């Protein structure tokens, strides 16, 4: 059965949220690449846990403990890749004192 390819774009205008739409296009690529990193992490994990015996490898699926460990590793990859966005969110919740203000205060009256 030879099928025509699925369309890649959903019908309907696509919103862009960032002032520079090209930056947002790059974000979409980063998301996809992060998925590939997680997939490769899991593949390595599978190899390590099965000692790379091809027969064992094919039928291997993670048990609950391995799944939980993988979920933690996945969360850690997301932590690292999207760190700047969550750090900015923290700064919204706890706004830092402006640097020039800090500098003036530390400089004291003697400056």
């Amino acid at each position: 059965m030879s099928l025509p390819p699925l369309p890649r774009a959903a019908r309907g205008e696509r919103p862009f949220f960032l002032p520079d739409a090209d930056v947002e296009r790059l974000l979409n690529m980063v998301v996809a690449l992060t998925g590939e990193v997680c997939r490769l992490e899991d593949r390595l994990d599978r190899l390590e846990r099965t000692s790379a015996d091809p027969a064992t490898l094919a039928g291997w699926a993670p048990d609950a403990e391995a799944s939980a460990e993988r979920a933690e590793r996945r969360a850690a990859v997301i932590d690292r890749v999207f760190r700047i966005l969550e750090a900015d969110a923290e700064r919204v919740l706890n706004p830092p004192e402006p640097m020039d203000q800090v500098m003036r205060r530390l400089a004291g009256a003697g400056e």
Partner: protein
Amino acid sequence: MSGPATDPAMHSMSPRLSADEKSLLDFAVSLKSRLRGPMRAALPKAYQAHAAPAYAAAHGAPPAGWREVGEAMQGEPVYRWWSALARAQQEYYVDLTASVVDGQLPELVDRYRAIASGPVKGSLTLDPGVAVPDYQAAVDIHCVPGSYFIERCEDDVWAGARSDLGSFVFTMGRHGGLNEDKGVAGARFVKSRFPDLAVRDILDMGCTVGLSTLPWVDAFPEARVEAIDLSAPSLRYGHARAEALGKEVHFRQANAEATPYPDESFDLVVSHILLHETSREALGRIVAECHRLLRPGGVMLHIEVPVRCTNPFEQFLANWDGPNNNEPFWPTLAEMDLVAPAVAAGFPAEEVFEAVVPTAFHKAGDWLGYGARKAGGRS
């Protein structure tokens, strides 16, 4: 109660996942759950601390409604990045589930044919004459290229299989391994609110692949369950899925605005997250059709996303999917008077209700239940 399901419950129609595909889906779920994390938590603060005061300074008054909140939030970097990441995640998991199912479509079609041609409990009635209405054709709902309707081969089940797999990822397993939460919650609600209702015939409108239909079979084992949808690929898949799970459902391709069933055919007419994918005019016609189809004393129940919010900021966030995830009617539904269409359809005003329907699993928040009971039929 255990936590959210980590894997979809498999049945003989389920798309199969390679280990690598499962890893990518796991990543999509992890990224989606992160969208409810630190960035989401910062949005109200960004609004209160910057966006609302800036808007008030420019306009002489704080934002009055959710649209004004949206105007105020456009300049907040944390909102922009959260939204950009949410849209990117949506497109990512849709593309992933689309390609996973596309890669095994011939086998899925074969499995559908094998199940449908064997001994079955339920049935499937397709009607190629059913047109796709504007509210489903104008945009691809949920940003799924091809939507529910693309057909590229005979007996195509791609859209249904992708919807089954995609629903699990979209809900992050929080609606159960079979995505049964809406149906389970709805059936519990009906039994507790209408304990005297004798249920012989149930109609589920806009059933897609029957995720929410099957729990009604379990809840009312003596009843006959019919389910309708516009999408033939979803109905084919849903029919085979129901048979694979041993449930008797009679699927039919039909438009909920005008079904082929005779007057007073059902004791219960239900839908699940259908109304927000329609239009104001269609909603009125669907409610009128519910009234026509119900026997005296019968009940209409539409389980909906919790669209009603108590303040403009939360309403703005609740409406995000409307313009940004191709759900164009959602914000209108959030503000609609739903009593009027039910009364216009013939339901007594005092029998029309909007109620909180508690989730049966791990969904964040509850469902909105909108419905009415038809006059008569009670001793």
